[in-house]
């Protein structure tokens, strides 16, 4: 149930302004930990600005959707929705410079596959990628736990796809004025696709997105759902609830309509800049990262060794006394 989910509780923001402040905060905290004693001008030329980060995220969301749509075996829509939700949630409180979106993107899809019960083994998963597949697999698996902890283990995502089906069933049953609601489906789905590119899933409930998509589709097809919404759906609602919901629906449409794609050249320029300022500790190709992984491994081994030594030492006194009895 969405109303009592972690999504409603922790991952709904009031609007794009709040999201922007969160992202700016993530950006600022990363820069302040790295800048040493650079001047503001140098910082601006060296690190990504919040705006650039947002553009880069958008660009990678496009890449993610392309990857998903070409994925073999073909994946259900909810996997795409969930992986995009993970991706967006991750970069609300983390900077693109700290974790490269390229790695996080793949990890999001892999995790979403698992959560949405469309499990694809890692070997088969990386077959959808070009390049050094083993390296990709390693990167995905090593970021998986990080991703989950950054998402606070809130892994259930409510996507707007099922609510839309629900509304269609409801309209067919209770609103006889429209007999051919199915013709709305195509435009509504297009709207939903576009909504995935926006921050809508961080601001609105899936039901609101679905209803907005349907009402948008209906208007495009020359139908109107206004009477259905006002007279049937809101029959039991208070005036304020109805008003606020209508306002939310208008906001969904506004935000979704205003999403625009990022020009390729701009994205490439940002990416170049990112290569210089990204956190090398989270770069699977860097020496720092490899070194750290090695240390971690050693540490684990060490701990295990110490534990065993302790166990042996604890056992001994008993063993001795047994021997002496003979």
């Amino acid at each position, binding site marked *: 149930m969405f109303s009592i989910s972690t999504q*409603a509780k922790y991952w709904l923001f009031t609007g*794009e302004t709040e999201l922007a402040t969160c992202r700016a905060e993530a950006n600022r905290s990363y820069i302040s930990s790295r800048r040493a004693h650079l001047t503001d001008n140098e910082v601006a030329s060296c690190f990504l600005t919040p705006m650039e980060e947002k553009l880069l995220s958008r660009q990678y969301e496009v890449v993610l959707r392309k990857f998903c749509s070409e994925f073999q075996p073909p994946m259900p829509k909810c996997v795409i929705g969930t992986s995009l939700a993970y991706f967006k949630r991750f970069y609300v409180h983390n900077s693109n410079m700290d974790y490269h979106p390229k790695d996080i993107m793949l990890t999001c899809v892999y995790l979403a596959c698992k959560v949405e019960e469309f499990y694809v083994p890692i070997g088969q998963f990386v077959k959808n990628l070009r390049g050094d597949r083993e390296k990709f697999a390693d990167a995905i698996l090593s970021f998986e736990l990080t991703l989950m902890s950054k998402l606070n283990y809130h892994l259930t995502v409510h996507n707007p796809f*099922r*609510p839309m089906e629900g509304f269609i069933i409801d309209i067919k049953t209770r609103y006889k004025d429209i007999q051919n609601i199915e013709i709305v489906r195509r435009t509504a789905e297009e709207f939903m696709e576009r909504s995935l590119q926006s921050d809508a899933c961080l601001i609105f409930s899936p039901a609101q997105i679905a209803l907005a998509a349907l009402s948008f589709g209906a208007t495009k097809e020359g139908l109107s759902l206004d009477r259905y919404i006002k007279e049937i759906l809101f029959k039991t609602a208070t005036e304020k609830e109805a008003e606020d919901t209508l306002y939310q629906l208008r906001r969904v449409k506004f935000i979704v309509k205003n999403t625009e794609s990022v020009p390729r050249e701009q994205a490439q320029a940002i990416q170049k800049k990112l290569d210089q300022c990204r956190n090398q500790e989270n770069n699977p190709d860097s020496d720092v990262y490899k070194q750290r992984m090695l240390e971690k491994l050693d540490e684990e081994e060490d701990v295990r060794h110490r534990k065993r030594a302790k166990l042996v030492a604890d056992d001994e006194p008993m063993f001795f006394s047994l021997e002496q009895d003979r």
Partner: protein
Amino acid sequence: MEEQGCPRCKTTKYRNPSLKLLVNVCGHSLCESCVELLFVKGSGLCPECGTSLRRSTFRLQIFEDASVEKEIDIRKRVLRDFNKKEEDFPSLQEYNDYLEMIETIVFNLTNHQDVEATKKMIDQYKKENKDQIKKNLSKLSKDEEFLETLIEQEQHETTIRKMILLEEEKKEKAAKRKSKEALIDALMYQDRPAHDIISSHKELAQHEELEAKRATTAFSTGIKIGHRSDIVPLNKQETAQLYRYCPLVIEWCGPEPPTVDELYTDGYLRNIRTISDAERAGGFREALACHRALQDAFSGLYSFPNVSAPSPAKRKSFPQTAAHSPMITS
């Protein structure tokens, strides 16, 4: 796995199930008959390694791996000298180090590593700790003390039990004699008919016997006599409150979705595809999917993040985001 057998006469457990393997300090096993043959004089050389052995030190091989036996022997010998207790050390760490040292010595001797150096070490240790070794030899370790007290306690209890039994027997005998005398007295001096007296007497005897039995059963539980405090009261029942079912109330945050019954009466099910046989076999029904879709559609429809209690991360209030509103086109 290799068949266990005597290395000298090549008899195996398979061919002779009653084969008994013996082992001596060197860790090489021999079967019983070979030992008898080779050590007629009471001592001789091990056929494997040439160590001189005494017949009396041969014992039954318990572990399949003879080297384990050898290790046990060496350990026994080493521990005779290295007999410090935990109390002899100021800290656990030092005691552990000491134990570690013993392990190293045992390992070295068993596996023939630095034998000379190790032996030297042992000798040095012996010299340094001569007094303490002697002192500790007479002392029992804590575990042994504990065992001893346990055994003592048990013995004490068995003697008590025996005494109680004896006394009871005596009492019984006395009672029997008494009742017999009473019967004869009654027969002699009472005026009632004889068979009447006998039958009433029998009844009485039976009654007594029953009582006695009851008394003995009360004692024949496994609980130690005189240890009342050990008995855990079994009838300590906690009276938990009975579970009361209260139906689940869900906060929909939206219009109330139809109930499953309404799906049927209001004709919702006409508007979804019919279920396939395979799905029905799996236990699904149309109503299930339909109900879920409708629930998902209605749940959270009236969700306005600014209205619900804001988390620390959500400091922004709604009016600021409403700055968009003039631009909104419906």
